[in-house]
């Protein structure tokens, strides 16, 4: 049998303790960067959801008098218009919404697979664990991004396919982390006592193991969402991303990158939103990690 030498960064560092939660919340609130990020992200999310309602434009109609216009208050083109005269303010917000949506759903897909897979492997241990983790090892060596590109090239750009493809890459990480945590949880007293009182394996995994994994999972989620958003933007650059007239921040940015010298606003606004999202999620992830990392408690 081959041992898993490499452990993910988080696996090594994150140890959850429910007792720390309360204390952690206070500590997290004291982290200025993380706190600010939460507020900024909330503002952006609200803006993405409700913002388009306050604009006189709809992001689809062409304003023939304002084609590729710089930001102006007239006609409410706050961010200007794109190269075919659509309102960039609305498109950016719609793109933000789509990017968040893709990020969250794809992350959930990978959570769903990863948590169950990791928990089962870790809980049963022994031969089951060995086989399941060997499979993960094999999958780790797959040039996954290439498979995703092939899928998108051959089967068209389809939202569900994007979720599945991206989710399928990311579940490997979470499976490893969860397995590690479960291995240490399964020998704890509360698991033993549940077993003694006759709970089935499945019940134990669901009621006792998975709830105790939530700390790691939340850290993981905040760090995975930005990664997914980046992967989607990479696909968009290759012309394999989302289908028009829908937009994602990735598709807007890759379009803007072509025109940055001529119409800089077409790049700047979506890029700003993209950067803020990625920045924010990463900072929150860092903050949460500090909270749940006992080594860094002072």
């Amino acid at each position, binding site marked *: 049998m081959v*041992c898993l030498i490499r452990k993910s960064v988080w696996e090594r560092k994150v140890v959850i303790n429910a007792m720390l939660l309360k204390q952690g919340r206070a500590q997290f609130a004291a982290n200025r960067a993380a706190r600010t990020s939460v507020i900024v992200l909330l503002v952006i999310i609200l803006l993405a959801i409700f913002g388009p309602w306050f604009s006189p434009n709809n992001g689809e109609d062409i304003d023939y008098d304002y084609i590729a216009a710089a930001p102006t208050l007239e006609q409410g083109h706050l961010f200007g218009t794109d190269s075919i005269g659509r309102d960039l303010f609305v498109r950016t917000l719609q793109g933000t919404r789509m990017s968040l949506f893709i990020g969250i759903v794809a992350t959930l897909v990978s959570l769903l697979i990863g948590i169950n897979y990791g928990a089962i492997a870790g809980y049963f241990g022994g031969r089951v664990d060995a086989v399941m983790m060997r499979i993960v090892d094999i999958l780790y060596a*797959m*040039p996954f991004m*290439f498979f995703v590109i092939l899928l998108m090239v*051959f089967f068209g750009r389809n939202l569900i396919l994007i979720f599945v493809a991206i989710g399928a890459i990311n579940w490997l990480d979470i499976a490893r982390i969860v397995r590690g945590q479960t291995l240490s949880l399964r020998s704890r007293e509360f698991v033993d006592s549940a077993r003694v009182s006759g709970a089935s394996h499945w019940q134990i995994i669901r009621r006792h193991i998975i709830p105790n994994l939530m700390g790691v999972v939340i850290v993981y989620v905040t760090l995975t969402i930005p990664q997914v958003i980046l992967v989607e933007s990479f696909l968009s650059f290759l012309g394999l991303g989302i289908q028009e007239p829908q937009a994602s921040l990735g598709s807007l940015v890759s379009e803007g990158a072509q025109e940055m010298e001529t119409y800089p606003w077409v790049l700047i606004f979506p*890029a700003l939103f*993209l950067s803020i999202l990625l920045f924010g999620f990463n900072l929150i992830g860092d903050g949460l990690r500090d909270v749940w990392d006992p080594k860094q408690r002072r």
Partner: protein
Amino acid sequence: MLVYILKRLLGIIPTLLIIITISYFLIRMAPGGPFDLDQTLPPEIQASLEAKYHFDKPLPVQFGYYIADLMRGDFGPSFQYNNYSVTELIMQGFPISLQLGLSAILLALIIGCGAGMVAAYRQNSRYDYILMSIAMLGISIPNFVMAPILILLLAVLLPVFPAGGWDDGSLMNQVLPVVALALPQIAYIARITRGSMLDVLRTGYIRTAFSKGLPTHIILLRHALKPALLPVVSYLGPAIAGIITGSVVIEQIFGIPGLGRYFVQGALNRDYTLVMGVVVFYGVLIVLLNLLVDLVYGLLDPQIRLGAQSSD
């Protein structure tokens, strides 16, 4: 140790078989073929082309042919570039991609680790905030945006470097693509180094070293660096994968004749053999590099004995 390496090398074979099988059938399931053009070929010519490449046989038989050729190290002829074999194309492109990738990894390691160490040593200082903010920028700007900005600034408006091309890997041609490829990895590595360095700096023996009055740079480089590098080494696997996928975009933007550029082009042209060649080749590369990373990790971390039973 040797036994361990041998075992791992044997373990590569099933992995590769899976990669080959999945990609082969995935590619062949795609609509359209290499000879579908916007004009229609006369049926006789179409048939002659298909016979030449065994397309007239059932798919599993074709797969058999392919595997048999592969065993002999023959990746087959390229459909698109019909004057070249895929093996030739890979041999031409790979050294270039390798040079690009290695330079990027090295740059990322040197700058990333350096910045991470400084930030950790001066935790919560101005340096820390500035360095980490720059690192965050590297993470939050996609490289297909960064690359054109670099070209615009440093090749067009201020003509210091060439705007594209490879020119047999001359230094000037390498600078911009390597930087664009390394930037996101610099950022990740800096953040990881900072985190692990903070851990190490809090341990007893480092504190003792400080209290004994050893010079700072000696403590940092000789005592703290090695343990702090462990998480960085474990990150190298994903970093290599990231650089390989990144090079698909970077090679296209800079017009570099590497391997990654063939991939998307090949998939679009239904150049089955070329796409397969690139996937298989990168598959082998990723597996081997992961093995290498594990070995390095084993060397750095005294707590891990290679080949030991895993119990976590």
